[in-house]
């Protein structure tokens, strides 16, 4: 079964959010200022949680489409 383009787009967004999370984490290591750390804690980790939820959502939708759930 060919996945719908919408699901591909959602997974693309998850990849993008994870990349932003990685960049914010990199700033914590390269410029350990409280501002970057706060940005990582409140923005970066939030984006990562959203990315994981999008991935889980796509996986569940995939399993449902294959009638495995």
């Amino acid at each position, binding site marked *: 079964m060919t996945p719908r383009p919408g699901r*591909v787009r959602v*997974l*693309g967004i*998850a*990849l993008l959010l*994870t990349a932003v999370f990685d960049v914010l984490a990199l700033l914590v290591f390269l410029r*350990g*200022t*409280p501002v970057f750390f*706060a940005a990582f804690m409140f923005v970066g980790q939030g984006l990562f949680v959203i990315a994981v939820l999008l991935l889980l959502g796509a996986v569940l939708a995939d399993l449902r489409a294959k009638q495995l759930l």
Partner: protein
Amino acid sequence: MRGLGIAFIVVDLILLFFAWRSLSRSGVIASTRGWLFVAVGLVPVMVAFLSFAHGLDQSSTVASCGTCHVMTTHTADLMNVKSDTLAATHYKNRYIQDHHCYTCHSDYGFGGTLSAKIAGVGHVWRYTTGRYELPLKIARPYPNVRCLGCHGASQKFLNSEGHPEGVMPLISDGTMSCLECHGPAHPAQQKAALR
């Protein structure tokens, strides 16, 4: 930890690229799922853990406190060997080995760390949004328990002529602040806004 953290981030960015390439070329197939699981679900967990640990430690350093320019007078005084303020005396004599600002401005135990970090978030917010007034004032009266954590059991403190028996209970219960005699802790700041 810094090198390891950066290595994990670089690896994850490479994995994200491969996941994106697989997704855009082949759609959601088995190999794409594998790339996605590792790049979004697995490696970032290590990145989050290492970044959190590194950031938490770094945010306790004097250099970190000094990154906000409102702290410039405080950190400059700290490193001035000719200064006689309480903070500078502790710094130049190495009474505290590391994390000098944080050691004196956080309470002991896990609760102390937690409340100091929450207060730190407030400081970052006020600094970033410019919601502060100069001269800076300490939010609450400085508690003696932070001084007594190190000095309380020392013979120099217990037998000092400046700490007669009648005064000791007042120091212990916080009625009399250590800073009444041992201050000022930091130099006075100018009233004009620096921003």
